[in-house]
């Protein structure tokens, strides 16, 4: 029983990080129908910002978190303005290839500046409570709670504020919404800022949980978070959260019962089966095609 609870806690920790990254994918997709493949690398940049702030400026936990979120969000907006905006009316694949290019650029730029893996110092005092055979670390609780709070804030913004209403409207129809006086460009920038900011937060939390970071860490985690977004139904914010927790749970469960090298294999096979059964994800709705 305690073992199951322990694994559930691990799954929640991994799942909340996946969910935070998946939110960035799904928000950008919802509003621009474009897959921002650079998102996984923005997540990596978040972890590196955290490293810079914590090691060189010796900041404590809260300012590090806020500043790295802000930094990544700013970077996300700059990327959107410089690289994606000129391509808004171009074919969709050009935008996707541009995103892949931006991602490669971020990876290799970071690699050129810091070729060796970095170690993030513990920013929080990590106390471990032992309840019988169950051990709960305060770090785990903080990661889970913090991501839940961030997700609740995001859900509130999207569902109950004017900017959130504009976001939902743009994902419905970009042309008409502009005629209604909604500043489309500003809202798109805001979406990018929020999405990539959450990715930056995820990068920092990941860095605290698994403290060794390197420039290529964003690739696999980014693609996996993308898979979470698709499993939940891409474009659907609540779906991305569910998808993140599902993938986290599956990975932890597989690692708990099989050799851990089988993790990717089982996780992706399950994903394939799910996509064959429900091609539009869990919460996604099929778009009827018309001729």
């Amino acid at each position, binding site marked *: 029983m305690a073992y199951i609870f322990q694994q559930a806690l691990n799954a929640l920790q991994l799942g909340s990080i996946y969910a935070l990254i998946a939110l960035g994918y799904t928000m950008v997709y919802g509003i621009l129908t474009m*897959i921002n493949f650079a998102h996984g690398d923005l997540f990596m940049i978040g972890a590196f910002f955290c490293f810079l702030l914590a090691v060189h400026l010796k900041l404590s936990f809260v300012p590090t978190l806020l500043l790295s979120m802000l930094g990544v969000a700013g970077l996300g907006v700059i990327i959107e303005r410089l690289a994606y905006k000129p391509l808004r009316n171009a074919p969709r694949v050009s935008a996707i290839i*541009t995103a*892949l*290019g931006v*991602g490669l650029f971020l990876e290799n730029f970071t690699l050129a500046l810091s070729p060796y893996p970095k170690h993030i110092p513990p920013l929080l005092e990590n106390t471990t409570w032992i309840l019988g055979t169950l051990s709960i670390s305060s770090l785990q609780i903080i990661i889970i709670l913090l991501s839940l709070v961030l997700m609740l804030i995001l859900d509130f913004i999207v569902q109950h504020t004017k900017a959130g209403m504009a976001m939902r409207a743009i994902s419905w129809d970009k042309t008409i919404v502009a005629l209604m006086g909604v500043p489309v460009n500003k809202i798109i920038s805001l979406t990018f800022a929020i999405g990539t900011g959450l990715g930056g937060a995820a990068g920092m939390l990941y860095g605290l949980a698994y403290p060794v970071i390197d420039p290529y860490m964003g690739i696999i985690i980014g*693609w996996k978070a993308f*898979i979470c977004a*698709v499993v939940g139904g891409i474009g659907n914010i609540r779906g991305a959260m569910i998808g993140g927790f599902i993938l986290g749970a599956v990975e932890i469960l597989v690692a708990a019962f099989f050799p851990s090298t089988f993790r990717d294999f089982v996780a992706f096979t399950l994903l*394939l089966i799910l996509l064959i059964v429900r*091609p539009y994800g869990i919460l996604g709705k099929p778009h009827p095609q018309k001729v």
Partner: protein
Amino acid sequence: MVFLKTAWHALKKRWHTLTDTRYFWPIFLMAGLAFCVAVDTFGFVDLYLQLILIYLGINIILTVSLNLINGYMGEFSVGHAGFMAVGAYVASLLTVHGLPAGVSVNFFFPLAILVGGVAAALVGFLVAIPSFKTRGDYLAIVTLAFCMIVKSVLENIDAVGGPRGLLGMEKLTTLPWVFFWTVLSLWVIRNLVYSNFGRGILSIREDEIASDLMSVNSRQVKIIAFVVSSFFAGIAGGLFAHALQFINPRMFDILKSTDVLIMVYLGGIASISGSIIGASIYTILLEILRPLGVWRMVLMPLMLVLLMIFRPHGIMGMREARLFTPLRDLATEKLWRQKKEGAPDATP
């Protein structure tokens, strides 16, 4: 300026009268093959340059075969490295462990490459099945998951070396073989997309439902496209393994697929000449920029982004060099140009 323009047109016309003759392709190919054989036997080109040419050929095969799915059929497959891995492992296992007694490995090599390609084609057939129902980003995920599953399975099979990889291949990939397979892949795919059947592939890109209504058997078309594409990816994998003489599962991860995607979209989708140009520019530029060290990997994506912003269709996107266009299509294109005279460049 006007003088330059007339000179350019005159040159172009000369070139076209040369390429339009029946003898151009046979002579060109014979000369190419003779050059490759000569280089291989006499070795007057240094080994480094030879290796670059071999990689160039392999990259052209990969690019043109991915272009069949991503460019001509309009899907977004990101799992090309998976097919390549299957071909590489099958071919290498055959030449390392499966060599029949008394057979020279040089004779056995083409067969091993072919079997690798067929194995990759069988896997491609399996990947084609989900593509009946899923499209677009969801199919991208299916191919991505497939690529990761292949890598994960290879890492877990100890008999093929697991994560340590496989070695023991002899250096059997020579320039003539690469030339042969490159020409074969270009020839097959070019003839496929210009055939009656291949027009069905293009119609799926434009509109799948409409093409169904026009009695295109979209399932059959998708299966054929995936099988042909993965077959050549497997061939490229086999050649790659025997050029490098060492493979491990990490070589065929998502970064390799990204490389091929970049070559496809750099050169331009739905274009044979674009595939050749894209693969050549990417391969050669990476070698030229080698003195820059890590920074070349920073410069390359930056150039790609700039190219995409200023030329979103890539270099030859949706266009074809006259060299690769069949004569009957040339006439249609001429008619179409005359009608559009004065109209701005109409990109689809």
